[in-house]
């Protein structure tokens, strides 16, 4: 019998703890498949964040370190400086990366640290129960913005890819989404290019993945996919913001 689909070796057999319909799981699979396809698993060292993906160290089938909230880029810097030949990645949510860890990601990019960041933007703090994130959309309700985000009070959501793309040594920056099959395939391509650019020693690489949080958005999984498409993509345009010659 022909095998049409097989679970990647990049993931362990541990069952994901993610909520039903949460797209964290899809993103894990894409990263793991890319590492397997590029033959990187035995030289990969990943860094898990504080956030819903905190247990990523149980799921990725490679060496892993668990970092303090927002500090994954600093931890990854330490790792990559010790093992320059390894494939290092951080997997971070939007609270982790764009709020508490804003300094760490900007300076890792500025130094051109040769690792790959998978930045999961679900416009909310998932793990702590739906508080406002720097990426929460104007009008979007959160437990700490019960009437919806007010731009006069809380400012406007941060566009991380656009910001980081202004940094010369951030050599690969792309925003993708996983709300349908077509976009999932595109997302995987971007993740692959980011890892390739890292292994070619080009500099800092990041893929921002728009993701859902049905639980804290108060929507069904299907409604969530649609909400992402109709509300997040207009504010967070998909596309490549930076890429070196080699992977274009």
């Amino acid at each position, binding site marked *: 019998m022909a095998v049409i689909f097989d679970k990647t070796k990049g993931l362990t057999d541990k069952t994901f703890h993610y909520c039903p319909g949460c797209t964290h799981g899809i993103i894990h699979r894409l990263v793991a498949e890319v590492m397997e396809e590029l033959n990187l698993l*035995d030289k990969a*060292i990943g860094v898990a964040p504080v956030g819903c993906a905190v247990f990523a160290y149980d799921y990725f*089938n490679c*060496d*892993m370190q*668990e970092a303090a909230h927002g*500090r994954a880029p*600093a931890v990854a810097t*330490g790792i990559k400086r010790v093992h320059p030949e390894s*494939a290092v990645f951080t997997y971070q949510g939007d609270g982790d990366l764009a709020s508490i860890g804003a300094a760490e990601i900007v300076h890792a990019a500025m130094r051109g640290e040769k690792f790959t960041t998978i930045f999961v933007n679900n416009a909310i703090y998932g793990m702590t129960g739906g508080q406002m994130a720097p990426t929460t959309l104007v009008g979007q309700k959160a437990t700490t913005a019960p009437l919806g985000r007010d731009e006069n009070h809380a400012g406007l959501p941060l566009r991380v890819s656009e910001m980081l793309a202004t940094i010369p040594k951030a050599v690969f920056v792309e925003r993708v989404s996983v709300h349908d099959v077509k976009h999932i395939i595109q997302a995987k391509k971007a993740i692959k290019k980011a890892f390739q650019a890292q292994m070619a020693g080009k500099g800092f690489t990041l893929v921002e993945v728009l993701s859902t949080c049905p639980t804290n958005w108060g929507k069904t999984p299907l409604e969530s996919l649609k909400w992402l498409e109709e509300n997040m993509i207009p504010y967070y345009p998909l596309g490549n913001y930076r890429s070196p010659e080699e992977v274009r």
Partner: protein
Amino acid sequence: MAKELWKGNEAIAEAAIKAGCRFFFGYPITPQNEIPEYMSLRMPQVDGCFLQAESEVAAINMVYGAAGAGARVMTSSSSPGISLKQEGITYCAGAELPCVIVNIVRGGPGLGGIQPAQSDYFQATKGGGHGDYRLIVLAPASVQEAVDLVQQAFDMADQYRNPVMVMGDGMIGQMMEPVEFTEVEKRPLPEKTWATTGTKGERQTNVINSLFIDPAECEKHNHRLYEKYKAIENNETRVEKYNLDGAEIVFVAYGTTARIVKNAISALEKEGIKAGMIRPITLWPYPYKAIEEAAGLDSVKAFMAVEMSMGQMVEDVRLAAAGKKPVHFYGRTGGMVPTPKAVVEQAKMILGGVK
């Protein structure tokens, strides 16, 4: 090797290099700047890596990553910067990552000042960061001792898989003294089979982590850590006992203050007063036993802790003396240094009082 004249901070940095430290992450702050400056020049010469981090928070997390990747790694700072590192330090303790942290202490609280102080004692020995954990804390009293202790610190860190802090006051960092770099006694060190190096297809995956979501597991982890701390207490407690024979008053002081106290002891001797000193070299594990024993000596009438603080270590002296003998305190703080004369006067007042 002949003795050479070294500035404390630079000697500390060179000692780390000699101990095989090849990664250093730091951020500028007075009075420890010579450490990162020296490292920035020296690390490339030994194929090591110096990196100026964007903050102390980032620096200690780079240490976490590098230590978890199996490297010998160090960071240094001074009081306000060490406060910022506390998050990373407790994560290193929780994930059992060997690393060395140098604190060249200055006056506080807040921005405080840039002159020598010992007011970070509580922070270093009683937690600092959150959770049940212990740092090994070494307190050199000379540049030579700083050099020796820094080299041993890396071995201690590796042996116990625990962060080690070398705590010197600003004086230790800034003064120049003759130094001889000697080989430290080798300890049998375990291989770092736990490090994240990439599996290279040769082993199971390794995970560096301090999260135990199941409280029973988390408690078990803490118990395991405390067994380790017990072993450290048994094996590593270090103290200098000075002139205790027949002493009427026993000073307890560490670091630069202990040097000042030695001068005071000589001055008292000339006036016919016998004084001795207990100098903790490890602030954790603390040499409670040495003080307890001194408290049992018939000649001893009182203890006097001398610190460059408002009185922090004195609490441990009281714990150890356990009410057997009175414990007094004399301190200067905020960057002020006690004089031998003031120590002598305080001692005479105390002895007058207990006579």
